[in-house]
């Protein structure tokens, strides 16, 4: 399905929306990426993206929503995550389900390279998908945690532009962070 074009004439876009709502199943939302890829998802899944949830509340979401800032490959990954996390299991009540979901999450990021994770973070931030933003941020944090500056520079391909004196000064000032 191609994305519906917005027309300058308000009346005809209303008609288009009415036609779209007749041809699409009830409570489904259509998202279109910046490179024209379309994804049909349940409203419940779409509501995970706060930016869309607000549009639905304010009644200005047509059944088709363009996502201009996100490419198709990234959007598909985000939707995959959102579908799995539509209902978050309560840790106290359903430990089994939480463990299974955590294991799925771990496999989900394992296959992704750092560049993709960053693109996902930026997209999740734009869509205001708090759950994925937190999870992806934690994944990036895991790349950084307990690593020396040399190791971090290598992972992120950073050039050291400090003089040895400048580096020493920073180390001295922050010496307390290395206690215990």
């Amino acid at each position, binding site marked *: 399905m191609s994305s519906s074009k917005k027309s300058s004439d308000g009346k005809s876009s209303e008609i288009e929306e009415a036609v779209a709502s007749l041809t699409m199943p009830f409570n489904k939302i259509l998202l279109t990426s910046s490179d024209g890829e379309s994804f049909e998802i349940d409203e419940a899944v779409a509501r995970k993206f706060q930016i869309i949830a607000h549009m639905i509340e304010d009644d200005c979401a047509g059944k088709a929503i363009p996502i201009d800032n996100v490419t198709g490959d990234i959007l598909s990954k985000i939707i995959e995550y959102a579908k799995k996390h539509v209902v978050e299991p309560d840790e*106290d009540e359903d430990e089994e389900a939480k463990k299974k979901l955590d294991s799925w999450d771990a496999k989900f990021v394992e296959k992704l*390279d*750092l*560049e993709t994770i*960053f693109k996902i*973070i*930026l997209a999740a*931030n734009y869509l205001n998908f708090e759950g994925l*933003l*937190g999870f992806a*941020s*934690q994944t*990036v*944090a*895991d790349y*950084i*945690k*307990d*690593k*020396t*500056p040399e190791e*971090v*520079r*290598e*992972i*992120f*391909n*950073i*050039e*050291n*532009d*400090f003089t040895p004196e400048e*580096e020493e000064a*920073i*180390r001295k000032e*922050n010496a*307390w*962070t*290395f*206690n*215990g």
Partner: protein
Amino acid sequence: MNQMRKNGDLGSESFGACLLLSLPEDVIAVIARFVSPRDICNLSLCCKSLCEVFDSERIWLVQCEVVKVLSLSEMIQWRIGISSYKAFCRFLGEVMKPLVGVWVHQNPELGNVVYVMPGFLSVVGCRIIPQEVGPLGIEEARVMWSPVFEIICGFDGSAKFFLHGRDGKLHCCLHPGFVMGIEKSCNVLLLEVETRREKELCSEIETVLLGETGVQLPFRKLPFSYRRNLLHIVTSTVGIPVPDLSSERLFPTSKDDEAVLSEHRTMLLKMHKFGGDWNHMNLEDECINIPNQVDINESWKHLGFEVDNRNMDAGNQTQRKTFSRYFRSGIKHILGRSSSLKNTSSSRSDTRPWNLQKFLNFGDSIGLSLKASNIKLSSYQGWPNMDETRYALYKLPIKNPIANEEYAGLWGGTFGWPPGKCTEDKPGKALFLLMLSYEESQDGTERLLIGTKILEGTHYAMHPNGSAMFVIKIDSPSFELFPFDTNGEDFEHSYAGEGTAKGYGFRYPGYKPGTLFVTSKGLLMFVWKATKVVLTLQRLDLGELLRKGVCVSPLPPCLNFAYLTKSHTNVFAPERRRS
């Protein structure tokens, strides 16, 4: 970029610039939540751009929030008094977080509870006095408390320690000292004397004579009488009277306290910088003499050195004289440059004066200090086994309630039913504080809920401090009915157990059967089966209690920190027992 790229790290040339720098500020803040201060430091060392992004006020504020000892609004309010959120984070993580909690001592037997909580740009330790509560109950009570210590945060984030105590003339005084190290998982708080050195050593001979070639004897290895005497000498010398304790604020009690709190803080900062002359100085002034310590040579050269007898705890007069004599002869040796001075071969710590020399040789003055260590401690039914010859406070392992340990934590209550109802001849009821915790029974077959008594407001302790008031088989519900009129309460559960009763003397209480009842509003009642006596308990927030409370004057400084003599009576406020 000429570097070799690892597989899977970066896909394309366009990401030569750092990926991290491409993220918006609020996303960086989310990532910062999941890393430690050390990681922030390592990130800052990578390159100048990352340093600017991560070594920033915004990110350090996130790190402060992660420590979770203060609310965001409190942190923003306190920010004016500290140079940066980074310095603040250090104080929060290294001083505040390890110390906040309930600290106790075995003596006196009525209970010795010091609640350490955030003050104003400080952490304060306040002792809850054994007392009675009036007919309005605990909620409305103005609980009596006295100040024990304060650790304030200087503008650069450094920690300054003050011990509260009254002097011989009954003035409330502050005794400034240093913080000598706080371990993150500390369980013992120690009051100590430490040696300081101002003057540079000018010759090798002096180094040898002062015993610098050996290792200093730590304060805790000195015999008790030397530790006690050193603490008394230092506190009586460095004590600075506080103008008016009743108008002082150690922690916020209402919204508009800030002016009084700031004044108190400025006073403390001046005292720490200038000592007794603080009142005539401004904070920005230079300090000429180093304050708040006792010069070792000066104090002992003169025979007329006085130690205020009234400040010492019930101890030995003759022992004090012996100590001074040993000390003077030791100093004479140093002054006479005797070659037989270097006597460091023996490592036995008995009551010879040489170990005192070995302690003092490391500096030319002594001062007050606070140390928080992690010591391997055994415990019985939740109560740590304490060394009663140390000026120390012990951390009580109070836990928060969780899924299947819903009654864990700090509870307070009184005897009698309905709660709060007082008789005419007894207008007040003794306030009891209990720590409830869960343990496996001796044979490992069932779980027990133990109610450890940590404070009681009676006149004379019948059972030891830290003994269990009741032990409940928490996994065995009982079918007992509450023996009195329910007073409108909705009773949900009851469990069988036993409560304290007369046993084989003071040290070993006996136990008689009883039942624990739980109401829907979260009240606990323990009823002794035979006597039908009821102990009613409710959850307590000590911070809230103290904020509504009334401050009373403290004991002399060393006793105020830790009362070392065995006593069954209310040594903290013998003349005032009701709030």
